[in-house]
């Protein structure tokens, strides 16, 4: 206000002054006019200065006003003004009965491990004379090579079978480890399938796993039996590694390479305790070899092929100590002992099409593997034929399988599998002779119905021609399997 008053006065003076002075002293008009001009300029400069300051003042005032909450300008509406943040906070609060401190169930749950149970049960029938387990145990080139003879397993019987009840307990241990244990309980008792401590925070794509676990060298071995697309494992895996696969105490170091293409490399060291490939007998007749006795290495490469398609190639190699003790004359006393090395190598591939349709409809999985093994054993002692002591026995076998599944309806899949074991199937005996055996094959068809993610019914038929003592045993098998999963079961890998 004061400013504008001042300015008005100055303007009035300016307007009046030249007129009166010019009338009184015309002679000095020029000089006066000059003086007035100078004054006018001075005044104008002052006015500009004031204007500028006024502008600044106004800006400062505006700024102040902006900082005041809008609400203050509308006092009459203030009490009714709803505040979104406050409302949201109010709504995000859990209802009274769910507040922490009261709900013990939830509090406990957050510290307890995830628990799940898988019950795997099936009805089986085959038309062999002594049962399929006996047939598989006696296949030419693969059979009769157990570390200890008379080693008994849960045999697949005609009629009702309970494969096992798989219990899973797992949790994050702390920011550095996660751990899980999987005891498998069958009628024969409990067996530890896995007990694993795994790192979660190692840099450079490294991960270490320790305990007892399935070697992840190939798809089938890395999966638990309930994840398989068929009731049983491929023939070659079953014959080379036995019913339980390569599952042992040890350590795994794996590395996810910093490449654009997913590439994982791993080294696994195992104690060396597999009935058919890496058996350690020790005792008086055989050298005691300290562990780890088995070293496995594998790589998996999964180039991106776009969209809903996925593919993964794997290569693997494993080697270790193998010992055998046999009772050659069947008198119940071991009479010859072998010690040496055993190795396997091979590769596998899996292709998956993950269709956009719900419940696996249209999904395709194609999978195949080649596996070769060689055991080179030295006769350490032979009570019946001392002449062969120091000689070698060499076994060489291999096999392949191809399988595929297709989701022909929501929740329904059909699958087929072809197995061939013993493409190469030969044995060089310690007495210098060599033998060559026939191959065995099997065709399998499967239909399964996944009622929900927690229950699956599977129907499977297979027909195999198994080489046994120079002949081919034709065995037809029929399975009706029911699996259910209770509790929070973890996600399955690719």
């Amino acid at each position, binding site marked *: 206000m004061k400013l504008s008053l001042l300015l008005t006065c100055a303007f009035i003076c300016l307007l009046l002054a030249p007129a009166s002075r010019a009338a009184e002293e015309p002679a000095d008009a020029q000089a006066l006019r000059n003086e007035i001009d100078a004054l006018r300029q001075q005044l104008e400069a002052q006015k500009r200065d004031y204007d500028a300051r006024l502008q600044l003042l106004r800006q400062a005032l505006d700024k102040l006003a902006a900082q005041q909450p809008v609400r203050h300008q509308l006092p009459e509406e203030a009490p009714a*003004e*709803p*505040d*979104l*943040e406050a*409302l*949201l906070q109010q*709504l*995000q609060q859990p209802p009274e*009965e*769910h507040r922490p401190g009261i709900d013990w169930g939830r509090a406990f749950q957050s510290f307890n491990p995830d628990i799940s149970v898988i019950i795997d049960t099936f009805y089986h029938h085959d038309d062999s004379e002594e049962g399929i387990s006996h047939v598989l145990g006696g296949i030419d080139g693969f059979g009769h090579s157990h570390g200890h003879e008379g080693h008994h397993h849960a045999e697949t019987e005609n009629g009702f079978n309970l494969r096992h009840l798989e219990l899973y307990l797992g949790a*994050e241990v702390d*920011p550095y480890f*996660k751990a899980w244990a999987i005891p498998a309980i069958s009628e024969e008792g409990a067996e530890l399938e896995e007990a694993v401590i795994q790192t*979660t*925070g*190692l840099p450079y*794509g*490294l*991960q270490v796993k320790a305990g007892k676990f399935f070697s992840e060298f190939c798809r089938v071995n890395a999966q638990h039996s309930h994840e398989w697309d068929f009731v049983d494992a491929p023939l070659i895996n079953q014959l080379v590694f036995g019913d339980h696969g390569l599952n042992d105490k040890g350590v795994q170091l794996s590395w*996810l390479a910093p490449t*654009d293409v*997913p590439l994982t490399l791993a080294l696994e060291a195992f104690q060396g305790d597999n009935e058919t490939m890496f058996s350690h007998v020790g005792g008086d007749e055989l050298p005691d070899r300290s562990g780890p006795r088995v070293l496995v290495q594998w790589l*998996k490469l*999964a180039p*991106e092929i776009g969209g*809903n398609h*996925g593919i*993964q190639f794997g290569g693997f190699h494993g080697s270790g100590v193998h010992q055998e003790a046999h009772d050659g004359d069947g008198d119940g006393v071991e009479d010859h002992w072998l010690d040496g090395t055993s190795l396997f190598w091979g590769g596998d591939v899996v292709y*998956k099409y*993950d269709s*956009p*349709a*719900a*419940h*696996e*409809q249209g999904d395709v999985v194609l999978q195949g593997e080649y596996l070769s093994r060689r055991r080179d054993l030295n006769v350490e002692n032979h009570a019946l034929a001392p002449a062969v002591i120091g000689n070698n026995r060499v076994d060489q076998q291999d096999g392949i399988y191809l399988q595929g599944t297709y989701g022909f309806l*929501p*929740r329904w899949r059909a699958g087929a599998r072809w197995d061939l074991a013993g493409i190469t199937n030969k044995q060089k005996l310690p007495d210098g002779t060599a033998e060559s055996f026939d191959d065995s094959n099997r065709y399998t068809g499967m239909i399964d119905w996944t009622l*929900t*993610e*927690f229950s699956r019914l599977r129907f499977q038929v297979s027909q195999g021609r198994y080489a046994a003592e120079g002949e081919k045993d034709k065995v037809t098998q029929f399975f009706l399997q029911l699996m259910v999963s209770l509790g*929070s079961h*973890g*996600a*399955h*890998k*690719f």
Partner: protein
Amino acid sequence: MKFVSFPLLMLAFAAGAVAEEELNIVATTSDLASIAQSVAGSHAVVRNVCKGDRDPHFLQAKPGYIMMARDADLWIRVGMELEIGWEPAILDGARNSAIRENGPGHLDASQSVLRLEVPAQRVTRAMGDVHAQGNPHYWLDPLNGRIVAKAIAGRLEQIDPFNAASYRANLAQFQKALDERMFGTELVSQIGGDKLWAIELKGSLGEFLEKGNLAGKLGGWAAAVKPLRAQKIVTYHKSWVYFANRFGLAIDCELEPKPGIPPSPSHLARVIERINGGGIRVILLEPFYSRKAADFVAGKTSATTVVCPNSVGGNDSATDYLSLIDTIVDRVSKAFTER
């Protein structure tokens, strides 16, 4: 010389673009990715695992997804156990401790949203695929989209404080755009988005507009769906609850007898009865579900099957989060008016 220097210059620019470190954001679904992209702007490359035309409940944890997670600075998930079948396999495989649950780069977007259908009693699987933490399809409520955007902006400010101002500005811009699509440009400029949402949350938007003589100024989705208020619809899965709740539609029943359980003939017979009895006209389902059951029911009633995407990328018109809601609003209101 010019011909030589030009490609070299381009290369230099490309190298510069790479050197100016962009954040790597991976979202489990396309909707979260779209919102994250709006908030992150040019400071991040945003990718998503599950495509919009797929069922987010089920996915193969492809090695390619593990690569995405390995390189991620921020992992955003829908949460509430929606991705439980595949997310753990990806996070385990990625060997990236920052994005594991509770890590600085792991954002569960469900943490701050308004939830529906949180079970009050013990949940068993006999009830079907019921999630103990509530119905996870919350992104179909635009208010939840707005809340998620704010959560993402908050986390980005923590991870990348240098660009905090930019994230805040992007958030404000996204919220404004969303508010304008929801209530119409005129109403938002006059009343303000926050205030409109607050009134909407209190359930008194109609009353407020009436009182202020503003009813004619309501635009956007709210205006488009207004005539459908309290109309009954049938859905395939319980995935439209949030959309129906926000826009005042009444879901009468689902074709699935229980969440995740396929429609059975006896249940469909009951649905047909309900549709005929209630004069229901719309059966809403996502593109990845089989149309069979819906078409069967539609054939026996006066209802029509409306296949509608519920995620960004579910069809050609749902290119981002806002156009997804556009698409749904459009499909649903057309389904009612075209008959």
